[in-house]
């Protein structure tokens, strides 16, 4: 069987990433700010296109070196087509197009949201089709049914804030540093989630809403602080636990509803918020009580990374579904588009 070796580039938002995959097995997965920072010294700026321009060559070089693969061994080059920030996407796409042209190999423009879900196929255990995936991150909240590596059905998504953003912004109302998600999670583990009760928004179908929760926390704190200026400090752990509990319940209730609607009992989570302990434990408990299967990828494949883009590119390569030099990034690329 011939070898299939693909270089993938991810530059949808803050981080620049590159990965090499061979026959569906990930050989390297580099994100700027980690390996590049260590290898090349100096400060790697966090944000967007100028940083991507500075990072992309060292990141690609590091990914090839770690994989022990030369440019001549590549069979295809992939990049994130969208969704994301236009300037950031353009850097990755321009680089990939140039490389594909000069090596005369196929080009693959990958959907970032599909890649998040296909990250489940990097390591064992891999879910069987069909399965449901909840993609939760700072920028996205989507509930998706996968029938195959190329057949995605969007069941629901957020109407306002993303779940990760809800953690970050409500944490900010509680005086936590931004981004507050990880700190809130840590504090919540020592709190009593039952001491305060924040209402669950009533949203029809499988869509999500988090901005009403943010406002109800704001109202609640305003009233309490009027009576006791130290209210937040004195009750911080319980407040964090209550907020975390509510956000997780909003997510899990829709997940449960999706199982009822589809009859599919294989449940996966993807995206950076997959690291939240409340969500992990809540999902595991729910699944265990119902006899459902759960899939949670390693954290390195949950946050934005090129490994997931490489995995998605591998499936597209097998399907013979290639792009050409007319490929354009699309900041608003829909889940079902490629």
């Amino acid at each position, binding site marked *: 069987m011939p070898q299939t070796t693909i270089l993938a580039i991810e530059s949808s938002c803050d981080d620049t990433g590159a990965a090499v995959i061979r026959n569906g097995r990930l050989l390297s997965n580099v994100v700027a700010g980690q390996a590049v920072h260590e290898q090349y010294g100096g400060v790697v700026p966090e944000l967007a296109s100028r940083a991507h321009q500075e990072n992309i060559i060292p990141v690609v070089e590091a990914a090839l070196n770690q994989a022990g693969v030369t440019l001549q061994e590549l069979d295809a080059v992939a990049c994130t087509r969208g969704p994301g920030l236009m300037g950031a996407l353009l850097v990755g796409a321009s680089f990939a197009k140039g490389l594909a042209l000069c090596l005369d190999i196929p080009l693959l423009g990958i959907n970032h949201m599909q890649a998040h879900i296909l990250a489940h196929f990097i390591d064992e255990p891999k879910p069987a089709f069909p399965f449901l995936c909840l993609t939760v991150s*700072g920028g996205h909240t989507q509930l998706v049914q996968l029938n195959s590596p190329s057949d995605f059905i969007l069941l629901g998504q957020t109407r306002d804030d993303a779940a990760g953003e809800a953690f970050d912004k409500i944490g900010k109302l509680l005086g936590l540093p931004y981004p507050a998600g990880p700190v809130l999670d840590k504090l919540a583990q020592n709190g009593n989630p039952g001491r305060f009760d924040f209402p669950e928004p009533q949203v029809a179908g499988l869509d999500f809403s988090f901005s009403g929760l943010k406002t109800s926390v704001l109202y609640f704190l305003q009233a309490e602080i009027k009576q006791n200026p130290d209210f937040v400090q004195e009750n911080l752990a319980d407040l964090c636990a209550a907020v975390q509990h509510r956000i997780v319940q909003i997510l899990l209730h829709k997940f449960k509803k999706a199982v009822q609607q589809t009859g599919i009992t294989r449940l996966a989570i993807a995206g950076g918020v997959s690291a939240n302990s409340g969500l992990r434990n809540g999902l595991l408990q729910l699944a265990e009580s119902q006899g459902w299967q759960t899939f949670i990828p390693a954290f390195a494949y949950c946050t934005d990374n090129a490994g997931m883009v490489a995995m998605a590119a591998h499936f597209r390569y097998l399907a013979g579904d290639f792009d050409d030099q007319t490929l354009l990034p699309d900041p608003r690329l829909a889940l079902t588009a490629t």
Partner: protein
Amino acid sequence: MKSTYDLSGPEDLAAAADWLLREAGDSKIWCIEGPMGVGKTTLIASVCSRLGVEDAVSSPTYGLVNEYRAGGQTVYHFDLYRLKSIGEALDMGIETYLDSGSLCLIEWPEIIQPLLPLAYLQITLRIFEDRTRQLICEHVC
């Protein structure tokens, strides 16, 4: 000159959006300020709906900017909350958007103050203890 509009609840949002669009006139750059959770994104969703945007209007905090289509025109919806410096705003190409001639609705605009054109619309959303809200609109020039 400042003008104000009082909202007693979410049912007033559509009328408030119409009022803002009238007040704005030709102004393409709207800076929208107000505390966390006051309803800035909800207000923008209402403005977009009045403009005929059919896409889902969601918070762009992570992605920094959302792009919507309304008929033939483009609307950019920014949330600059997580930017730490003006350099980061320049890195994302903020000037290209501000100079595009398209409507730019900007939440948390403080950090890009020096990059704003001479004339823009300053909108403040206030919340009172009884949970009613007030919009304050001012043409800065």
